[in-house]
């Protein structure tokens, strides 16, 4: 991290440590989760999908949340932090637009000025989300440098933050970046896993054999994994975006190497000189060359396994959940769904909980285009 951001990060670290266990803060956050966002979300037993694959599959319905994705859990938490810190302006980076939408949404609630950085390439492929942000009063600032996708939006957001460090709060959308962000985002997203654990014990009287979630920056996955960390018998599988092939993907944990990006040391897709690679995935929200550092730890310690699903398989997953359960998943979440088919080959009869991180309305045009080709 550039030196200019240090005192800001330190201030946030101290502030968060003080406020996170504060009863009033927790009550306020619970209010927004329950009365505004729509928590707790359902843990749905997907009968048809389960029968089709020969496993017992439960879907954690983050797609049913207000704004249609798990992003709102983190945005509400951080907005509350920013509010208590007295900040007046929020900036955010966004890939698919879901985090941008959630940042714009919470800015309306708390009266912040909101600027969202989005790569030009992403603006083109997620038009509806761009318009949603604008209607929600945010300014969408196109990023025309680099690969013009999520990592470049992060770069611009960081440049803005370095320049406006005193009055602006940077609302990071996933578990990447410099400490304390990966921790803060994980903590706010862990409401997913906490609920799911309670719910599965209630319904099945036992813990799941597998947890499956898609991994881009890693927030929904860490959110569902973390509360099960000590349940050693529960295996965790993170599904990364295999994109088109070995050279054109966003699977940092599978095909990347340790490096430093955006203030975190983690697995990064980079060339032999340490230049960060341009990535690809049909799912804009997974299109990031790095991954949350905690996932790197889970991989190296063996707590979780990380696999890939390519664009084609993800589209199949999108279709199959729609056809079997009448639920249209986000393309990001479709990666997790698609992996189930592979998991079924070796885990017949297992109890599986999948994090359905978002709904797929935003992706209908993309899938249509893909299927027409």
């Amino acid at each position, binding site marked *: 991290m550039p*030196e200019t951001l240090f005192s*800001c990060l330190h201030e946030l670290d101290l502030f968060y440590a003080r406020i996170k266990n504060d009863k009033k803060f927790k009550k306020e956050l619970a209010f927004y989760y329950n009365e505004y966002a729509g928590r707790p979300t359902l843990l749905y037993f997907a009968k048809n999908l389960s029968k089709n694959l020969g496993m017992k599959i439960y879907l954690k319905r983050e797609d049913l949340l207000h704004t249609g994705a798990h992003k709102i859990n983190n945005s509400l938490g951080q907005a509350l932090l920013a509010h208590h810190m007295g900040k007046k302006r929020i900036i955010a980076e966004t890939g698919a637009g879901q985090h941008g939408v959630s940042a714009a949404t919470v800015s309306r609630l708390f009266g912040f000025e909101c600027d969202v950085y989005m790569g030009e390439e992403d603006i083109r492929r997620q038009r509806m989300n761009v318009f949603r942000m604008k209607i929600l009063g945010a300014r969408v600032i196109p990023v025309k*440098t*680099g690969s013009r996708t999520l*990592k470049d939006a992060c770069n611009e957001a960081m*440049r803005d933050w370095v320049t406006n460090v005193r009055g602006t709060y940077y609302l990071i959308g996933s578990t990447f970046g410099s400490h304390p962000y990966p921790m803060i985002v994980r903590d706010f997203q862990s409401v997913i896993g906490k609920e799911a654990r309670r719910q599965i014990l209630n319904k099945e009287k036992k813990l799941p054999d597998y947890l499956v979630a898609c991994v881009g920056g890693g927030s929904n996955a860490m959110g569902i994994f973390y509360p099960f960390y000590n349940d050693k018998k529960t295996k965790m599988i993170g599904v990364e975006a295999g994109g088109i092939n070995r050279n054109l993907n966003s699977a940092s944990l599978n095909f990347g190497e340790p490096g430093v990006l955006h203030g975190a040391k983690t697995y990064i897709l*980079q060339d032999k000189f340490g*230049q*960060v690679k341009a990535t690809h995935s049909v799912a804009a929200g997974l299109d990031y060359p790095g991954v949350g550092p905690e996932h790197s730890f889970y991989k190296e310690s063996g707590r979780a396994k990380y696999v890939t699903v390519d664009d084609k398989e993800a589209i199949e997953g999108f279709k199959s959940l729609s056809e079997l359960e009448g639920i249209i998943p986000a393309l990001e979440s479709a990666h997790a769904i698609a992996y189930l088919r592979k998991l079924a080959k070796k885990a017949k009869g297992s109890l599986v909980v999948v994090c359905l991180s978002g709904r797929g309305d935003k992706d209908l045009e993309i899938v249509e285009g893909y299927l027409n080709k």
Partner: protein
Amino acid sequence: MLQNFIRMTIKEKFNELKKQGKKAFIAYIPFGFPTVKATKDIILTLQKAGVDIIELGIPFSDPIADGPVIQEATSIALTRGANTHNLFSLLFSLKKDIKIPIALMTYYNPVFKFGVEKFFNNMVRSGVSGMLTVDLPIDESREYLKNARKLGIETIFFVTPVTPKERAKAVVEASSGFVYYISVTGITGTRDISYVSIAKHLKEIKKMTNLPLCVGFGIHSKKQVEEVQKISDGAIVGSAIVKFIKENSFKKDFLKLLESYIRSLKPN
């Protein structure tokens, strides 16, 4: 000993300047812009024009501390093939012709990928003594400093207008060569600001160390250079020079124009 390969160190340069009663004029240019080949001539021209220290930027795909001018230049350098290997080839080839100290300015990942120890060894072999790693905070620099100290590499760290007192003390303690004072809360890029406002903070930092204190970011005129040199030990000019290179490198007499431009920025 490896030490013999390093030409004049930054420390030695500042001692020399002090004896002459002069302040430092430091120029930043990105390696490989407009081309790897052109960098050699540009470096020699800067030396000819009387630059005291050259900061050579290593292009990185995600330069989060840089503004549009340097972003664009480093991006072009990357597409035209600038990398860590040809950087060291160039530096090695310049060993005999360069008399002034060179410091490499970089983000951490390219160094980490290359191997920090290997990188520092290459620096020593090419006679480069200074290192500025923009996104490496002192808190994460233990291995880095250990390797640097072993080889005599001068590690320049940053103090900003928002750096708290205790931290500034730790930063200057980790530093060698000089301490880089970033004059604005912001990214690189020319600005029409007065540097008088930072004089007070500079005075406080100066009390913490014997190291020279140099100011950078935003400087683009002789007046600003003079202002800055009055309140510190040196002025660092980056984006303004990069902009000049961008706008003139295709001209036939480019190197002559560059020399005049540099001279026009330096106080008499």
